[in-house]
């Protein structure tokens, strides 16, 4: 009985974990991934991102690729492989 309750708790916890902040993170990861792809660079999935400054991020992909993504003074999005 205790085991069944525990098993039921797993999806419940997973649902509770899907709060707005996570959704925003997922949307931002999708934005970064699309930005990398638009530059023709590989990234299967964003697993980590770190904000350096306004419009300036480092992103790590599941496949091991890491990128510096920022907007240069001319307003261009630049993606540099790290």
């Amino acid at each position, binding site marked *: 009985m205790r085991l069944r309750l525990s098993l039921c708790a797993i999806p419940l916890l997973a649902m509770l974990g899907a709060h707005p902040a996570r959704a925003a993170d997922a*949307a931002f990861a999708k934005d970064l991934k*699309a*930005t990398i792809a*638009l*530059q023709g660079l590989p990234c299967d999935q964003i697993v980590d991102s770190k904000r350096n400054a306004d*419009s300036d991020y480092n992103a790590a992909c599941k496949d091991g690729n890491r990128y510096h993504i920022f907007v240069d*003074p001319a*307003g261009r*999005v630049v993606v540099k492989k790290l």
Partner: protein
Amino acid sequence: MRSAEPSSGRTLQRARLMALFALLLLGAAAAPAQPQAAGAAALDLPTLEERLRNTSAIGLFTKLSLKNQVDDLIAQFRAFHAGRRSPTLAQLRERFELLLLKVVTLLQDDDPALASAVNASREALWEVLSDPKKFADV
């Protein structure tokens, strides 16, 4: 998002580029009516503009990246209409198709109606870009 300090001529150029960017992404409402793809929503330009601005299907970085690529393509069309023969019109068509494909791909999952509207405007957009007179009027 920062940009370099523009001169008044540059401001005008940017305004024209932005207008064409809107046309590219939203459909060429100024162009003659074209046959719509099946399921494409027939929306007017202001509605389409608002929808693109408000769509959450494309993030801010992605929108800016697309804008950069649109600006690059427009610069290539401008050079072509000014007499430069490389890239050729066939190559420009290929680049235009690729860019439109990227936009539709980015929209299709989360905003399929807007994706259809953009896709349905393909030929009308091409007419504006490839015709020197229509391009100059944008």
